[in-house]
């Protein structure tokens, strides 16, 4: 297996995640796209860990998984709060800060 096949797969998944973050309106779907991007980063970590024969990539992939879980918890709490205040989970209706 060549290293690049994993890296290019991860890059494609990351770009699909970027598209999702930019194009989705619903807050839960934006969080899902962020998860896609974090998964792509994890694939990179594991691929480099196998390529460099080092355990550091595996350890940091575990850290990323943990932080992704924390991020989903806080993110969904924020989306719930937006829903409760605006009666809608759509992020483009959050515009109180607009002058």
């Amino acid at each position: 297996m060549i290293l690049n096949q994993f890296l290019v797969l991860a890059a494609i998944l990351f770009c699909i995640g970027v598209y999702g973050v930019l194009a989705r309106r619903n807050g839960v779907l934006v969080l899902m796209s962020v998860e896609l991007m974090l998964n792509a980063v994890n694939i990179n970590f594991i691929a480099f860990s196998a390529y460099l024969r080092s355990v550091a990539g595996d350890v940091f992939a575990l850290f990323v998984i943990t932080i992704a879980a924390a991020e989903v918890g806080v993110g969904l709490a924020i989306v719930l709060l937006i829903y409760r205040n605006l009666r809608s989970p759509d992020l483009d209706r959050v515009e109180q800060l607009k002058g």
Partner: protein
Amino acid sequence: MVVQNIFFWVLAVAMVLAAIGVVRSPNIVHSALYLVVVMAGAAAQYILLAAEFVAWVQVIIYIGAVIILFLFGIMLTRAPMGGDTNLDNDQRWQAAVVSVFLAGVLGTLLIQEFGKKEIAISGAKGEQLLHIGKAANLADSIFTAYVVPFEVVSILLLAALVGAVVIARRD
């Protein structure tokens, strides 16, 4: 080597199609289920790279916990299930241009920099690779070299979960 490559390509195609499903599906529950496919595919890629412990952590935390959280989020925000309302905003074309541009830049850079570098998996090098991904080896590393980041991450997780409860509860 050929077997691993066949598995890789099957998984890669499934993952990319499911990822496009996540960002394009008109039904929000289908998006969450497509995300399961992407994450299971990523776990299978970790198995291919002999990172067995990370693969099972991925299955337990992502597919087991994070997807359930997403489904709860969908339920609690009473998201439209019918697929008739518009889940996308009106910057779809700009988003597509940005992501295709980013994919071009990243792909060019990766191919220039890493070219045809191999991950050696045959013979003694394969044995070494199998040893690296083992849970015992990972635990040794986490509790010696990376013990401070590990503790910091656990405090961060605690703080984030307390914060989530504080933000989400009704007063």
